């Protein structure tokens, strides 16, 4: 039996009939066709599939697609605006915050939520804030630097205007 699910993904409305067991991550990748959200484990440990659901960071393997009914979703593909990278994307590029790039979309989405909650985090707060996301390449050194750099670029302005990555999409 299939269920109808209607969501807004990166500002665009989608409506599909899906199997009830379909995970949100597979819905985004296989049905909506947005493959920037990755799968790296079977047990919600790695965080490669992190997205924003109504502005909150969520591992999209922990939700069924049908639970996304009526929700606003932002994936990595929705972060750049008008051809300009989001400050976090830019910072990961500038600071060499990625190598193979597989964990990067999830890492950026988790960092976006972290900065939304805490626009000027300390190094410790960044490390704790990203502990749901695994990276095998970078030793996290440059990921921490990237988030620090993005926080500086965003200058806490995000909080003032209420214009977070999530809210803008």
């Amino acid at each position, binding site marked *: 039996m299939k269920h109808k699910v209607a969501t807004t993904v990166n500002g665009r409305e989608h409506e599909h009939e899906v*199997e009830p*067991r379909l995970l949100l991550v597979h819905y985004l*990748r296989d049905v909506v066709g*947005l*493959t*920037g*959200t*990755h*799968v*790296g*484990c*079977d*047990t919600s*440990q*790695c965080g*490669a599939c992190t997205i924003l659901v109504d502005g909150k960071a969520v591992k999209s393997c922990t939700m069924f697609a049908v639970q996304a009914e009526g929700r606003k979703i932002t*994936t*990595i*593909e929705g*972060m*750049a605006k008008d051809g300009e*990278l989001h400050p976090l*994307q*830019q910072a*990961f*590029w*500038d600071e*060499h915050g*990625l*190598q*193979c*790039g*597989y*964990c*990067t*979309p999830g890492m*950026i989405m988790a960092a976006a939520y972290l900065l939304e909650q805490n626009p000027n985090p300390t*190094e410790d707060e*960044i*490390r*704790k804030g*990203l*502990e*749901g*996301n*695994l*990276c*095998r*390449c*970078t*030793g*996290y*050194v*440059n*990921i*921490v630097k990237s988030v620090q750099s993005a926080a500086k670029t965003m200058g806490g302005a995000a909080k003032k205007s209420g214009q977070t990555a999530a809210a803008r999409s």
Partner: protein
Amino acid sequence: MAITTMIGAKIHRREDPRLVSGEGRYIDDFTRPGTVFMSVVRSPHAHALIKSIDLSAASKAPGVVAIYTHKDIAKVIAGTMPAAPAFVADKKQVPPRFPIAEKEVAYQGEPVAVVIAESKGKAADAANLIDVDYEVLPAVMDLDKALDPKSPTAHTGAPDNLGWDLTYIPEDPSVMKGADVVVKQRILQQRLAPTPMEPRGVLAEYSHPDQSMTIWMSSQNPHFIRLFLAGALGMPETRIRVISPDVGGGFGAKISPYSEDYLVPAAAKLSGRPVKWIETRTESIMTTTHGRGQIFDVEAGAMKDGTLVALKVTQYLDMGAYVGTFGAFQAVACLLSTGAYNWKHVSARTVGVLTNRVPTDPYRGAGRPEATHLCERMIDLLAGELKMDPVAIRKKNFITEFPHTSHFGLVYDSGAYEKAMDKAMEIAGYEKLRKEQEEARKKGRYLGIGVSSWIEICGFGPSAATAPATGGLALVESAQVRVFPTGSVTVYVGTHSHGQGHDTTFPQIVADTLGIPYDMIELRHGDTAEGPAFGYGTYGSRSLAVGGMAVHKASKKIVDKAKKIAAHIFEAAEEDVVFDQGHFYVKGSPDKRKAMGEIAFAAYGAGLPEEMEQGLEAVAYYDPTNFVWPFGTHIAVVEVDPETGAVDLKRYIAVDDCGNIINPMIVDGQIHGGIAQGIAQALYEEVVYDDESGQLKTGSLVDYLVPTANEFPNFELGRTITPTPTNELGVKGIGEAGTIASSIAVINAICDALSPLGIKHVDMPASPDRLWKQIKEARN
């Protein structure tokens, strides 16, 4: 004289915009019209006979297209999976390995049947309905007991479990007898799961009309995969195309061909449908080759003044159920066991042991972390006996003259070991740290400082050494440089980048060699349909020292031809033409010059020198004259909580030397990641099996502890630069350095911290429970 502009520059990676935008294209992002999905039925037992396989329920399940077992696959796949000689040419036994089991399974996870179905879910559902009747056999799980004549064997009918037993240098006991102090230690190297964040995956499409196969897979060396598959499928290489797109990490685990690399193409050929298989994380931990899995029995002797005398090493290597394709590479641990030091005598023996676990194969560092670990552990044990500072004993014995020929006949190219150590001590504030430690100890705190001076053999490698090791193919590297009429350049390489940033660094080399702007140079790799006939892949920190040199060599061939054309245009003798930063001119007339782009245009026109063909492109194969030998010193600072056994890694300092540097940002990134993987081994990761049943106990990332950002401090880096004389660029390798150095820096720091309790040695992972027990025993 040419001025270097791009080599050495911190150029931001050109692959990043797509990767940060979610537009990277990894294996699971590819599909073909009509694709079906494969699920693998795997043995739940470590060792068993297959009595029967009942497919009746599964074949009726919704969406099932086909189910294949050994008899079906054997129709399209011939021969056994490869096992290279590597560092052990003469093996006692090589159990034949086919991609899918016929009568006997020898490790948990070995494929028994495959289902292909219209969706991933339906394939998995149907796989669950396949009923395999097994007769469970005793499993060989203990490395120590496996060589006992009474032990069961990992394969029925095998004489014993001995895979190999090779003595590289026999012992001369008289030398050890001459030492004032001798220390003995058994050192464990636990099995590790490489765990690239992207698991493995294969998509294959067979065209019956064309009799051609296209395979997309997550691989570090697509050309080798094509070579192996051509043999197995009985197809010419020309009809097989292997594409390895963006790859989410390899770490050595995506070098060797796996069962699924044969099964997916076989299923595509049998079914006539494109077939896709993506590994789950549990499959990855269970069936992707493991690293390490070794026990070392080591003895080391020194004189009272700290002069090193003799080292005796025996390596017992858990090969798993089969010989990993490059599994015997790990015996290199023996050959590097003397480290950065002069020893009067060394003896080394490697023993390969078959067990009922998944095979071991190279994992980041592959044998060299083990070598550094055992050498640096023994040096600290000797320092402890002699009441010497660990730094002092190292400095006393460092090799200082290069080239240095080791006891094993290997030639260390260049080094300045003490310089790197001094720099590490300076960054760490070593003397101050020792004072802090003294103060801490007075307060009952267990602060420890661990030193690791590492060396590495990499840049595989010279044809004379590597052709015998692979069974024929030399591990040289190829490159093709094509200059288009308007001066833009495409470079094809046989290496594969999966995080190393070659798209950026190789064009940096080309830009300098050709004098063409960096932005006009594009790099392509990972597709066997493009570029030179054969590429050798990326592993063993070889891409720059071998692949980068191939790129450099091909670029120089371009300059040579362009110079002839320029001389012709200038109506000058070739030897009078100067090439400087992308421009040609006749000696003494630098104002009348022609850019490389102008020469490129002329190369495709009329009026070339007599007998010269049009075009400006070149292929080069580079065969290095030696390996390259990076080195460095790492220092770890830890505090151990004696009540809980928890280790707080307070600081980590690394000074590494990889010769000349193309892009410092990328070098630092490689070191960071490598350090993290070594620390992960020291403190967290271990593949654990049940000793009786052979069941994997760490089958997910819940139990297999890949560390998060929260487990690491910032890493403090420094560097020295000692170019290699081996290649013209003066470059070595840096992909594995961090891992080679770091596990023992941390373990030596823990041993140092706990030395007031009389604890001399700690094994890995130094988890709180292990340390807590050891501390408790020491206190009683």
